[in-house]
Each structure stands twice: as C-alpha cells, then as structure tokens.
C-alpha cells in the first residue's frame, strides 16, 4: 500500500505513459526542473528530447505540440498558470480541437493539456486564480477535473491515451490530497462519473477539489439529510446517465462548482436535471459569483469561492 499524493499521482501517470509509449513527450515551461510538480525527475529519466523546456511562448509551443501530434507524437503540454489558457484558447480550440472535423476525419489529434494548480492558490490574485474549465466544455474540448490522487492518475493516463485533445485541470485545492492506493492504478475512462457517497434525499454534484468538501458536508449532515455525492470527474463528455440515475432517485439537486456562475458547468447540470427529471424542489447552485475576478486579500479571495457553509445551506433549502 502506498500513501500517494495528488501531485505524485500526476507525476507517476506521466512517467508510466512515457515508459509505455515512446510517442509520449512532455513540453512546457520549467518542465525539466519540474517546477510545477508533475514533471519532476522526468527529464533525467527520459532525456531532453522527450521532456522539452520551452521558452515563454505559450501560443507557439501549443501549436508546436499540435504539429507534433499530427505527425505521430502524443504530446502533453503543461501550463503552470490556469489563466495561460486564455492566451492559448485560439491554439487549443480553433486549431487543435477543430482540426479533425475540418479535415473530414483525416487526422487524430492526441494532445493533452495539463493545468496543475488551477483555481485559487490564495494570494495569487486576479490573473493566476481562474478556473476556466467551463470555457472548454462550452467549446467542446474534452475536459477532466480529477478530485483524488487515484483519479488524477487514472484520468491523466486516459487523457494521454485519448486520440482527441483533452484538458486536465488539477485543482490547487486538490493537489495536497493523499490517498492509500494498492498496486498498479487503472486508467479511468473519460466520461465516467463516480458516486463518492450514496444517499437518498439529495444529490450533490461536486467538481474537483470540492468533492472532498462535499463529502465533509454530507458527513456533517448525517442523520439530518441523506446526501449522495456525485463526482462527474469528466466535465466533457459528461456522464449524463449517472446524473440521471442519481437525481432520478433523489429528485433533489445541488451543484457545488468552483467556477463563475453564468453559463458554467453548474448551470448545465441544473438545466439537464430540469429537462429530464421531475424535481421535488428547485435545484441550487453554489458557485463563484458571476464574472468573478479573485481579489488579492485572502478574505476577499475566499469570499469569492464557494464555501462549505453555503453548500450546507443549499442542501437544507432543497430538502425543506
């Protein structure tokens, strides 16, 4: 049994993927030194021509990875800062994601974008604290947000093996997580949710690091409300069958999502539930505010993120 940290799980997934397939390469800023964690030691193990330190040219090295993906490689691109995704939205969405359809299926585009430390790290302010996964869901790019070390390993392996572009968000709030694991971890198929806690009265869909908080809230409410916690794990393609199954039983829904409210993942989940299930109470979303820009001062930063007491209140409201 191993006490596996989330960061080490990402690191092991990259190392195992590179050992399994010589086409897998890693590129990004400071990946040789392993500054962000997931690439630590990989350059010494696999060499500078498979773990490439890139100059601060995010747009060019993202398209560089696309060119390599179109011609036989299976690159993983690491971004140290979630807001860098705004800079390369063109390269990921307009170039990599659209390539296959626009060419009538002539090419596979096996590309993984890894974002360790997405969301708030408290104290890094407006341009380093975004959690923009909904943008990629909206654009149709495969998007995963692992909540646990085992899922971080399994989903990253699956993302690298996938023949389409996949963005992997590793939330800052989850990267301190540790988990007992035994033996070889399996890949986790993209698009499969996981019921983290069975319950009868209300379904809480929680994303990424908020899964752990939701489980805590569910425990706190034990005896008062029976809460089911559903971790979608993949936001696109979303496991709608799992949502249907859970909410179909509980017929009450709260979504706990550390991202901006308007047009967010929580909004989509609530919309699908409303379309497909006769809910017993209006559903609730617990999210960042509309168009949130996280302020610097820690109290303000925290006040802009969804919080456990808000989730608790929302659960109580829907079962009232």
């Amino acid at each position: 049994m191993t006490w596996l940290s989330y960061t080490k799980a990402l690191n092991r997934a990259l190392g195992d993927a590179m050992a399994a397939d010589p086409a897998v390469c890693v590129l990004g800023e400071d990946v040789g030194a392993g500054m962000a964690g997931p690439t630590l030691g990989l350059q010494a193990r696999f060499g500078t021509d498979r773990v490439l330190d890139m100059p601060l040219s995010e747009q060019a090295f993202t398209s560089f990875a696309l060119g390599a993906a179109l011609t036989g490689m299976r690159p993983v691109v690491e971004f140290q800062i979630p807001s860098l995704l705004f800079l390369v939205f063109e390269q990921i969405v307009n170039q990599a994601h659209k390539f296959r359809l626009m060419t009538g299926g002539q090419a596979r585009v096996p590309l993984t974008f890894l974002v360790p430390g997405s969301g708030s790290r408290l104290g890094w302010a407006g341009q380093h604290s975004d959690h923009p996964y909904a943008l990629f869901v909206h654009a149709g790019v495969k998007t995963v947000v692992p909540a646990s070390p085992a899922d971080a390993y399994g989903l990253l392996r699956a993302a690298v093996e996938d023949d389409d572009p996949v963005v992997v968000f590793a939330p800052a709030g989850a990267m301190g997580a540790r988990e007992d694991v035994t033996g070889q971890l399996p890949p986790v198929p993209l698009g499969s949710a996981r019921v983290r806690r069975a319950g009868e009265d209300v379904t809480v869909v929680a994303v990424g690091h908020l899964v752990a908080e939701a489980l805590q809230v569910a425990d706190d409410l034990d005896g008062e409300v029976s809460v089911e916690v559903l971790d979608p794990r993949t936001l696109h393609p979303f496991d709608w069958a799992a949502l249907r199954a859970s909410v179909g039983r509980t017929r009450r829904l709260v979504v706990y999502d550390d991202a901006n409210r308007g047009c967010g993942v929580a909004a989509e989940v609530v919309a699908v539930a409303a379309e497909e299930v006769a809910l017993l109470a209006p559903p609730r979303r617990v999210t960042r505010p509309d168009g949130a820009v996280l302020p610097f001062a820690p109290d303000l930063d925290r006040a802009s993120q969804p919080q456990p007491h808000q989730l608790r209140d929302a659960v109580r409201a829907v079962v009232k």
Partner: protein
Amino acid sequence: MTAEPAGTDRGTAAPVAGARRAAGEATPADLSTPADRYRMMRLIREFDTLALEWVRTGEIPGGIHPYIGQEAVAVGVCAALGPGDRITSTHRGHGHVLARGADPARLLAELAGRESGLNRGRGGSMHAADLSLGILGANGIVGAGAAIAVGAAWAARRSGRDTVVASFFGDGALNQGVLLEALNLASIHRAPVVFVCENNGYATTLPVAAAVGGSAVGRAAAFGIPAVTVDGMDADAVREAAEEAVARARSCGGPGFVECLTYRYEGHHTMERRMRLTYRSPEEVAAWRARDPLERLRPAVPAAEIDAEVAALLERAAAWALSEPRPDPAEAGAYLYAGGPPPRPGVPV
C-alpha cells in the same frame, strides 16, 4: 530561369479528375521540369478562375481568397520539396494544396461542399488539407501554421526522418506574435522548416509600408535564421532559393526563410469584387500583371498543348465535382472526435 527547348518536354501525366478517392493513395506533384511547373501554374490559375466563377454562380458557398498572380511561389517552393516533406498553408491556400499534388477534382468538390471533397465537405476553401500528401491544412487564422510546422518538423527529426516542412504565410502574418514565437522555436531547435513569406504587398487592404516595421527578412535574421528575398513572380528564382533552404534544413543546418515578392491580381477575397475598393490603383495592378509568372515561362514549354490539357482536365474535374453528392445533414457532427460518446444534439430526439 532554366530554359529548355520548346516542344521537347511534355512533363508528367496530369492527374485524372476524381480518380484518387482514398487518402493514402496520393503522391506529391512532380514539378521537376519547366513544363511540369508551367502546367501546375496554369492549373492553379485556371482552377481559381473557375472557382471565382463558381462563387459568382453560387456553386461555391461563402467565398474564396484567390491565388491568381502568386502561382510561382507555391510551384517554386513545392518543386523544391521531396515526397516525404510537409507543408502548412494559409487562407489563400488553393495554390499550395494543388502544387503539393492534391487532386483538383477533389479540391473543387470540397469547395462545392461535396462528400467526396478533400475534406468530405467539412473544411471548404480555408481548411483544405490532404494529410496523405503532407498538407497539414490551409488555415483560416493568419500566421497560425508556422508553429504547427515547427512541431511537425521537430517530431520528424526526433523520429529519425529527414523530413522538411515548408510553411507558407503572407506579409500580414509578419505582425502576428505567434509567428515570431515560431521563428524563435525553430531557431533554438534547429527545426527543418522553410518559412515562406508571400509578400503580396497588402494585408487585406493595408499596404506593407504602413504595417511592417523593419522588414520580413530582418525578422528572420533577428532569430538567427538565414533569409533571402526573391522575385516571387519567377518560379525558378523561388525554386532555387527554396532548394537551398530545403537542402540546408534537410542536412540539419536549421531553418531558412524565403521572402517572395509577389502580387495578387484579384481582391483579398471574393466579397471585395462587389465593393469596388480603391486601395490599389489600376496602374499598379497592370504593372504587376505585366510580370506574369506564366508568361515568363511560356516560351520555354509547349504552352498551347499544356493549356489545352489543363482546360480539358478542369472540365472533367468540374463535371465530376458537381455530380458528387452533398453530405447528409444528419452527419453534421461527424468527425468531431476520434473517440467517445457522440455529442448531444442541439435538440433532443
């Protein structure tokens, strides 16, 4: 210019319209003789002349960016490439795609939105691609192809192949940051890329003098990339410069940069035809037309014969393309993903 006696060189057989259907069967165009190069320039010229007509009649939805006038650049560069090499192209891409050897019938079918088009009718003019020929796509975003080319060149080199990638872009791309980033990446990785700047004088309507501080070759030189400027109305001048850059890149000498001074006879795109813009004087257009790349090569080849051949080829290609079926509307979401569940439809069924 390499002159060969007229009438002695008939070049290679022209492709048969619609004959090459499946990906992977294609071979790059043979552009080794002056007759081959003249034939390809004639094909590009007449192809885009027909395409302009098809935009007018509605056979081509939307519009195109005609390549007419710039033929010597695509043909000169592609003549310098080998069978395993690759290209990235631009929004004005028909010339590059044809010069690399794409089937003109399937490109016409693509522009007309047919299922048997190069991209199964999913890409159209600005995204035409034939991966089996190493064409990594025309591209609707100015300057977007250069970094893709560098990545493809790096990938080939690290897998032990001596592939060279030619990346076409216009003078407008000289002011895209990602292009400058790509030049730097190519330089530090010594990537086997030949950057081909088609300087046609205008970024849509903005003249180069009003848009480009410094120069095209100055940008390349700043990144340590050898750069030359050539007459882009002369296919042989382009070919010779490209051959030098390709040979250097292939032998691990790093990237090269060729600026080709050229001109588009038509507007930026087909919408411009209706707008009667005045940013270019008729005298300027006439002066460039007088330096026509086809006329330059004409005395050296059996031109009348080739012209007739190309006309017949295009006639067959056009008839075939227009007879091909349109894609099934139920398949609008096809090819979006290589794997995974199908995306939800816009309206539940």
